């Protein structure tokens, strides 16, 4: 069943066109990996989906409904369809891990306080941090902070969970724990969009892979199609570069 449809999305900053008409759709429970070199528009696409940027043209549909962006309240409501995990975690430093997870549901009065707390504890347990619920962000490693950020993004039960290069700011030995958590979410049936430079991860977790280049989708298909027999020469060149030993 189609959950998300993006139609002809365009976005420019000043005279630079960053997205030049992006179209794709995603089924419920699917994992989409977006790869591409920096400046190709991957992050902007993700930011448009989360309404941190407003697209200049095009439409975003969730469950067949066009998301409108006229009023502030509409935009806030649209954002709840999506969750976003940032490259730099962006945890709230003055709150503990648990408070980071429960803050938004509390603000939005999603549930009774005890229920929100119980759900927060369950989410932190899911990302393997039940022993760190009362730690402040500065007391956590980068990998742990990113796992808290994942739990926080899930606290509002978004329909599509987005990751913007979730391991790029991490030391190499910490990327594994975060990727394992993301993989476990796929097993849990979450619909996800992952912008990543981790080709092996994209290959093994994604159902669909998009290669973006210069603001357009250059290639889209299953991991086998994109990684093993890419049709576009740009994709081939990119993958060669990404896999090349130095």
């Amino acid at each position, binding site marked *: 069943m189609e959950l998300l449809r993006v139609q002809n999305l365009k976005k420019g900053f000043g005279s630079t066109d960053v997205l030049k008409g992006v179209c794709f759709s995603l089924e419920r429970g699917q994992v989409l990996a977006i790869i591409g070199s920096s400046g190709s528009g991957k992050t902007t696409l993700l930011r448009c989906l989360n309404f941190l940027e407003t697209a200049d043209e095009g439409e975003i549909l969730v469950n067949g409904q066009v998301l409108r962006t006229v009023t502030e309240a509409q935009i806030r409501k649209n954002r709840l369809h999506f969750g976003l995990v940032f490259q730099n975690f962006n945890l709230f430093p003055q709150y503990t891990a648990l408070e980071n997870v429960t803050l938004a549901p509390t*603000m939005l009065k999603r549930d009774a306080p005890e229920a929100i707390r119980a759900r927060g504890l369950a989410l932190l347990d899911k990302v393997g941090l039940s022993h760190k619920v009362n730690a402040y962000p500065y007391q956590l490693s980068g990998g742990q902070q990113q796992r808290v950020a994942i739990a926080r993004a899930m606290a509002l039960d978004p329909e599509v969970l987005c990751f913007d290069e979730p391991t790029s700011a991490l030391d190499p030995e910490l990327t594994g724990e975060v990727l394992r958590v993301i993989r476990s979410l796929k097993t849990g049936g979450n619909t996800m969009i992952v912008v990543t430079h981790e080709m092996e991860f994209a290959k093994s977790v994604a159902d669909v892979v998009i290669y973006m280049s210069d603001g357009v989708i250059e290639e889209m298909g299953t991991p086998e199609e994109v990684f093993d027999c890419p049709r576009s020469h740009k994709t081939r060149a990119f993958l060669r570069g990404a896999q090349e030993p130095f």
Partner: protein
Amino acid sequence: MFIPVTMQLLSGFAETLKVFCLTLVFSIPLGLVICFGSMSRFTPLRWLTRGFVWIIRGSPLMLQMIIIFYGPGLMFGLPSMPRITATLLAFSINYACYFSEIYRGGIESIPQGQYEAGQVLGMTKGQIFFKVVLLQVIKRITAPMSNEIITLVKDTSLARIIGIYEIIWAGESFIKEGLIWPLFYTGAFYLAFSGLLTLLFGKLERKLSYFRG
């Protein structure tokens, strides 16, 4: 002589404290209003506010006080306002302008990612400001605010220029009796009070040291 001098200085110090406390009460919130004005996306308001801050910060507080006290009468023939009102008006506006710049520095130093994290979690602008940003700003501006507030303790002595009987005036009045030590005694009041403020700000800083960022 010690007791009468002490009594005299205490009455001056009461006036000093009054100017100090009421100035803070008015200028701390007023500073926030000016701060939002100087950060407004509405350009005319932003430039108007910044121009106002430039005038207030760029001219002496003493001059501002004199103009506020004598100006309305001399320029428009209005009845003069009470001395304490003119003093508080001048002090509050002056300090609010300095505070507004400290606030602005604090607010602009918060990474954009903090706002974005709040936004993607469906929080409103108000919720993001009060629940996410504000405490981080307070932590960051504690040191510059304590600087400014300790300066205010001593600036209150300027109020004598429009006839507020503050503590230095009280101490100075003993010179005609040939006494210099009441002036040193006056200094001790200032030192004790700014010492107390230093302790209080240290306490606040320790209270906010439970997180970093």
